[in-house]
């Protein structure tokens, strides 16, 4: 039997009154995959996650979590023992200490107390809060709260973890920590469903990314593919003439010459040595050749457009 998908959604839809929050979400996320969920504000990302976690009921459609349909409430409840979740704008009982907070959530997972104590210490260490284990959460900064929230999502060593904007409120060190944790999770075979508006973050952590717009998936891309395909190149050289520029057209397009700087789009980076040889043969003095990959941001703007992006 093949392993079931971590997440499988079929035309999942949510309507609040007249407002269609999610039009029809269809996607499959494999186990062990780090999956990015991208879209402008108000595209329905958080609503989609909430439906997958049974926080809100879908208006229509169906979805499965680790092979279990959402509408089988008793089975889905036991599946949740294998799922972690860091909500967006994470809030908590701030009168608990860091250790008490994690123990409370671990008990809700049904973890036996000896294993839980050990896991709590491990996680406090992982998120760098060991020194604050007996401090009440009300004394924590936003970044510290985000870290303890992340620890909470990992208590049960989940097979599938939903992170809704995990780096909001974090400084660069904290962001690096989240990135490292996601890398570790991938190594351990945990599926991560990452909802973030920080494109750079998705770019460095995810295997695949779904673009969501007006409540539906408009494109799913493998990031590896993105890196290997289209790129552009900027050449800084003296002795560039319009004739030389025209001569480059056999390797690419959109050639723009501006004084000593020439920019063009190429199909693949493999053509760069040939371009270099050509330029040298034509008598140009090359100072720099800088290939530029199509960034996720370019792809995002291309796919989602700029309308509605706040």
């Amino acid at each position, binding site marked *: 039997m093949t392993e079931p998908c971590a997440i499988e959604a079929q035309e999942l839809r949510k309507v609040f009154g007249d407002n269609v929050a999610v039009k029809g979400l269809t996607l499959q996320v494999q186990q062990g995959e780090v999956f990015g969920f991208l879209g402008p504000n108000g595209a329905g990302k958080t609503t989609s996650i909430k439906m997958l976690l049974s*926080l809100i009921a879908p208006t229509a459609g169906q979805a499965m979590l680790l092979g279990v349909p959402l509408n089988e409430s008793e089975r889905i409840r036991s599946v949740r023992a294998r799922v972690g979740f860091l909500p967006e704008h994470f*809030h908590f009982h701030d009168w608990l200490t860091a250790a008490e907070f994690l123990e*409370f959530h671990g008990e809700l997972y049904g973890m036996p107390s000896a294993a839980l104590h050990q896991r709590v210490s491990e996680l406090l260490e992982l998120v760098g809060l060991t020194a604050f284990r007996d401090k009440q959460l009300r004394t924590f900064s936003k970044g510290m709260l985000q870290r303890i929230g992340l620890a909470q999502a990992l208590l049960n060593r989940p097979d599938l973890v939903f992170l809704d904007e995990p780096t909001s409120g974090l400084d660069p060190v904290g962001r690096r920590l989240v990135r490292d944790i996601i890398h570790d999770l991938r190594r351990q075979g945990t599926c991560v469903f990452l909802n973030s508006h920080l494109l750079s973050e998705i770019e460095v952590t995810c295997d695949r990314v779904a673009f969501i717009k007006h409540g539906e998936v408009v494109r799913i891309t493998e990031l590896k593919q993105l890196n290997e395909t289209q790129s552009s190149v900027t050449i800084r050289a003296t002795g560039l003439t319009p004739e030389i520029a025209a001569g480059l057209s056999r390797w690419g397009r959109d050639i723009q010459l501006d004084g000593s700087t020439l920019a063009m789009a190429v199909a693949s980076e493999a053509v760069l040595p040939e371009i270099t040889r050509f330029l040298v043969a034509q008598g140009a003095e090359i100072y720099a050749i800088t290939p530029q990959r199509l960034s996720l941001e370019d792809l995002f703007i291309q796919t989602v457009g700029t309308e509605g992006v706040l």
Partner: protein
Amino acid sequence: MSPTLIILRLTLSEASRRKIVLAAIVVGLGFLLVYSIGFHIILTNVNANTIGNLDNAAGALTVARQEGHSFLLLAGLYAITFLSIAMGALLAADALAGEISSGTVQSIVTKPVRRSDIVLGKWLGFAVLLALYQLLMGGGVILSVWLQSGYTAPNLLAGVCLIYLEALLIMTVALVCSSRFTALATGTVVFGLYGLAFIGGWVEQFGSFIQNQTAVYVGVVSSLILPSESLWRRASYEMESPLSGVLGMSPFGTISVPSVLMIVYAGVYIVIALLLALRIFSRRDL
């Protein structure tokens, strides 16, 4: 530990950490102190006056004293009934609504627990807190009266249990509202209903006194909407002195006594309200 018990424990530790228990004890002791001083002053004043004016009839003196003690005890318990229901409403109003609006509930219901565990755990936690409050305040008033005068009312246990049942009733109704509305809206609805039942109770009393069926009917209907005032009237009926029971003249005495059926109704009301809270909370979007 079962999820319900985990939530129950969290509810109790929240009440203690957030100084709710401490505040209730400190202010409660203040109440008991004022009550005891008042009782003491009235007691010595009445004793001095009655001994001066009424030195002949020892039997009448005893009866008059007992009536005074009964009146003061019921007055104290009446105040405590109101404090208990306010406590129940305040605790429960924010319970679900607060956790929903702050979002704390999101990381809890996505654990392998039933939503009903959360409602049930909180309900049990509040029931324990209200019982402790009742023990402190009701027990304090009863003890104060007994220590100063040696008076105890009949059927004390039944009376105190009915007062507790009233606090549970209001708390449960607040929990139902809290599963759907904001904390403020919950408070408004619950105290509004309480006021309706309160005034309905007086309309019924008055109607019974002047033998007006319509007024009695209005009172019964308001008791069915929320049987809180009926529970107090039954409690005071249980605990009033035999004489005022016969005369029916004391402000805390009852002319129209709520039947045992009304108490059963209140019990069923609580169970149904709790089931409703479970159902609403289990189905709503969070």
